[in-house]
């Protein structure tokens, strides 16, 4: 049994104070530039408590938007001196992550940057992941764009979380604390008496399970994607008419990819002069027209719909084939924030329907 006790709802965010005092860097939903975003906080009063999902994911604390890889300096003899910056990897606790983000980042991104499947390990991501503890909060009120249940997850899914906290329903709600890893155990030591253990664990487990089931019922965007992978696996469907018909709507910006918990593409740029400067690693997006643009001028994905097809394939096929991880966790950010409201779920529904029709016909 993973239930360790409960925290009273009004004391929930005191975790920030306790963990900060213990010298940990705490990342939680806070107000950054007027928006609810994950940011570093040091006290409970900096936290936005009434949130569904922060605008950004916490992936930028493991895979920053922009970071220096090294600086370069040309010596007199024409050789280059490369200097890696001194990097700090502070012990970090992410508080209040949602299960969709946690699965996306600690599961899927980790499979790309440090997975056994394809044998590559990104040293920076791995190092940051090693010092990061994720405390997820179960959702109780999904919005109209949430679709994690369709993606095989749920509002109270513990995958990837070190600690999962679920608020129970009813007159006297409590926040049930469950621990899933050794890092989670270590975190409990810092919380001390904040986590009360004076109630029967099996009762708490039951109430927590009921809360999860109730939240699950509140999902609106529920649909069938069982046939999507089969549809995409058929090479003949690569040129299906739906890709051009639906994908032409895309305006080729990168909002969906930058807000996505599982998007991981990056680029290197040299900033500075030929004699001295820095090489930076920055987020890149497969939706931008100069992504995979060859030096010759050849562009394998010329149009917006070809790029959107690539993203769709990445989420529903490539991730599974190449990394054995979930490509889309159903957080719904790309649905919420698309400038023209292009909706990846309507794509998935159409692909699913097409495959179903094939099966009925066969």
């Amino acid at each position, binding site marked *: 049994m993973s239930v360790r006790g409960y925290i009273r709802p009004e004391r929930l965010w005191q975790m920030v104070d306790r963990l900060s005092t213990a010298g940990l860097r705490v990342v939680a939903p806070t107000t950054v530039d007027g928006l609810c975003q994950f940011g570093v906080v040091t006290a409970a009063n900096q936290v936005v408590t009434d949130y*569904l999902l922060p605008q950004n994911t916490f992936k930028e604390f493991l895979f920053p938007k922009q970071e220096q890889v090294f600086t370069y300096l040309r010596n007199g003899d024409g050789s280059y001196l490369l200097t890696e910056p001194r990097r700090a990897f502070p012990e970090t606790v992410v508080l209040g992550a949602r299960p969709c983000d946690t699965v996306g980042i600690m599961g899927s991104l980790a499979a790309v940057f440090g997975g056994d499947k394809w044998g590559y390990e990104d040293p920076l991501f791995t190092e940051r992941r090693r010092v990061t503890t994720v405390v997820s909060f179960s959702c109780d009120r999904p919005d109209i764009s949430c679709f994690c249940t369709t993606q095989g997850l749920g509002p109270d899914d513990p995958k990837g979380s070190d600690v999962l906290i679920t608020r129970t329903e009813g007159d006297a709600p409590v926040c049930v604390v469950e621990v899933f890893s050794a890092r989670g155990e270590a975190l409990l030591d810092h919380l001390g008496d904040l986590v009360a253990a004076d109630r029967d664990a099996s009762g708490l487990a039951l109430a927590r399970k009921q809360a999860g089931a109730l939240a699950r019922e509140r999902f*609106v965007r529920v649909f069938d994607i069982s046939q999507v992978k089969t549809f995409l696996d058929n090479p003949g469907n690569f040129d299906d008419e739906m890709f051009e018909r639906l994908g032409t709507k895309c305006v*080729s910006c990168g*909002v969906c990819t930058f*807000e996505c918990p599982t998007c991981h593409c990056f680029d290197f740029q040299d900033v500075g*002069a030929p004699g001295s400067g820095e090489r930076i690693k920055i*987020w890149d997006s497969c939706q931008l027209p100069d992504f995979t643009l060859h030096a010759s001028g050849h562009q394998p994905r010329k149009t917006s719909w070809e790029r959107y097809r690539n993203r769709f394939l990445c989420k529903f096929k490539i991730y599974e084939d190449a990394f054995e991880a979930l490509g889309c966790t159903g957080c719904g950010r790309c649905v919420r924030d698309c400038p*023209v409201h292009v909706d990846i779920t309507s794509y998935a*529904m159409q692909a699913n329907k097409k495959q179903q029709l094939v099966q009925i016909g066969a």
Partner: protein
Amino acid sequence: MIYATGIHTLKRYASLDEVIDQAAQWLAAGRIGMVVGYGRQSPFTDLTMPTFVVSREQLEQELVWNPFCDYNLLNYANLGARQAARGKGGVAIVVKPCELHNLDILMEEGNMSGVTRDNVLPVVMQCSGVYETDGLNAYTKEVARPFVQTKCLDCPEYLAAHGAAKVAEDKLAHPRYLDYEANKADDSEINWAATLNKCLHCYACRNVCPSCYCTQGCPADEASTTHITNALRMVKHIDTSRQVVYNLVRTWHIQARCSECLECERVCPVDIPIMALKSKLGREFAGEGSPGDVMGFLVNFAGRIMAENAEKERGGD
């Protein structure tokens, strides 16, 4: 600015039925090959997604018109030239009255944008305001009260539809309108270098801008931005960032070609006040710039906001 394209006096359509009849006639006569309109996004919401339809049946099935038709479909005006090149006439595009200025600009620059009176037929809807879908971030149908977009509060159509009292009330209740107005007039509170450095380089502002219609060679592209940043560093010894360069280049490029449709501000995921930057650039150019040396002005401007930033950071210590 007065334009001579005559589109501002076009008929306003009150209902979708009228639109469907007219568009179907145009389609049947071969005047157009496609209608660009608003269609339903998904069965779950009232949000809309662009739709491209080619027959009367599709028009009847797919077209919608509601306050969630928030974005600017003239972004797809280049489809008109593409249709015309295939010998299919052109496209009809559903537009809101406030977007007609964008169409003016596109037609004025027709030799570059490819938009002409022949290949783009605007279908102008009567509009009584569209909602800020940004506020739907945590939207559930029961709880959130949608509010209209900032631009609607300055719109004569909105005023005509709802009356002055309602407009005044909405301005006060709107979560962003007052800030927006204040920032445009006076930006002394804003640390520009820090604000622009939030930019993610997602290019949403550029890609939804009807005036940004180039398909290649944009000086704000990722690689070009880095080159310009490097050049500033090497030649002018100004240490800026790619984010600052991108925003200055793009904002300057639409400076006199902007209809303030506010699409860029609406879609920015990090809420950069782009219109305030545009106003600032305009004000300062009027004060010190000369048309013969735009580059010199922009370089000085970049240097100035970096210096101000350094000052503010020192002051904060």
